[in-house]
């Protein structure tokens, strides 16, 4: 096989003709470099058809500056590691097409808001996941391996409520988009509270007394103003706002029963 046929078989090569139809042959990308006191550096990146923002970042790192730090793993919207601020909006970059977000052939890439920057486009996610732990986002089993398998009917109210919230990939887009997190950094935030809500509805779980007390209060579900930025931005189209409203109801019920 010659080099020529190998190139012809390359799907990216085959799509080349479409590039001619793009509005411009290149795109100017301002990328945050450094830590909190860093600066934007501009790179010029060739435009491709069906190019994602993650493709752009990878091109910069492989062709212009190998010291650029960023995170990704799966590239298909499963792992939740590639979220960044794209033109001012937190997004998963692997499934964000440049066509959809690059106004005037310009991109501005920053790390996620509301988390400390380690370097360039990489945030320290520890605070984000510590909040999942603080919200008791872990199953507290009530059965052993000797007990029969729990039967959870798919049509039951609890199962449907958990289903609606369970597909979170932990990307941090909601946490970065939440004004309340920006105003009071101790607020547990949409992702951790959404996770707690799935467990509140898990009939196998026995940790709700502690969980409801952990998520109640001004650093928990009651801080939410239902502005729904999390729901607007969630790439998985989940509704953390609805989950938080569910927690408020569950906490109120526990309070009135004297179980909080």
């Amino acid at each position, binding site marked *: 096989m010659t080099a020529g046929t190998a190139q012809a078989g390359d799907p990216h090569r085959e799509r080349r003709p479409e590039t001619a139809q793009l509005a411009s042959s290149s795109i100017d990308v301002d990328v945050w470099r450094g830590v909190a006191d860093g600066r934007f550096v501009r790179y010029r990146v060739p435009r491709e058809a069906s190019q994602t923002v993650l493709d752009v970042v990878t091109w910069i790192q492989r062709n212009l500056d190998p010291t650029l730090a960023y995170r990704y793993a799966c590239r298909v919207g499963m792992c939740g590691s590639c979220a960044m601020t794209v033109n001012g909006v937190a997004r998963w970059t692997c499934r964000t097409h440049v066509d959809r977000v690059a106004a005037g052939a310009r991109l501005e890439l920053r790390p996620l808001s509301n988390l400390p920057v380690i370097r360039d486009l990489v945030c320290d996610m520890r605070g984000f996941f510590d909040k999942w732990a603080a919200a008791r986002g872990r199953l*507290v089993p009530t059965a052993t391996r000797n007990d029969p398998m729990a039967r959870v009917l798919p049509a039951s109210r609890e199962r449907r409520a958990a289903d609606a919230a369970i597909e979170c990939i932990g990307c941090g887009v909601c946490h970065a988009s939440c004004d309340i997190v920006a105003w009071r950094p101790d607020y547990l935030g949409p992702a951790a509270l959404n996770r707690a809500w799935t467990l509140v509805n898990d009939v196998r779980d*026995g940790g709700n*007394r502690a969980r409801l007390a952990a998520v109640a*209060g001004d650093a*928990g579900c*009651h*801080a939410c103003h239902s502005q729904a930025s999390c729901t607007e931005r969630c790439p998985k189209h989940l509704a953390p706002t609805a989950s938080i409203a569910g927690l*408020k109801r569950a906490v*109120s019920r526990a309070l009135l029963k004297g179980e*909080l």
Partner: protein
Amino acid sequence: MSLVRGAAGAAAGQRVDFDRSRARTDATLWLLQRASAFVLAVCVVVHLATIFYAVRSGLTAAAIVARIHASIAWPAFYAVFVVAAAVHAPIGLRAIAAEWMGFQGRRADLAAVVVGVALLALGLRAIWGLAA
């Protein structure tokens, strides 16, 4: 702020790092805010409807004051209105103080209580002035 060492949490082998009494206080305030909002919604509708009705009938302010003065029901209605407002507003202001002014815990609570007492005193004094 004291940390509650709950028996349930300890038995499950989990670190208990939340304040249960704080959670109860915040949850209670949230419920009070919702309940007072419900009362306020009714009161505001009655208040506005009455004003529109009274103005349509061509009543003067002096005539309205005279009617309230002669009534027990209207001062009682406005007393409920004032109490609901005095409960509702400070809880919302407390959240604003926490988010925008950095008031924490007891300090925010105290500021809210001061505002609530002031609203209650001013409102009830106004009703007393009309009724007595």
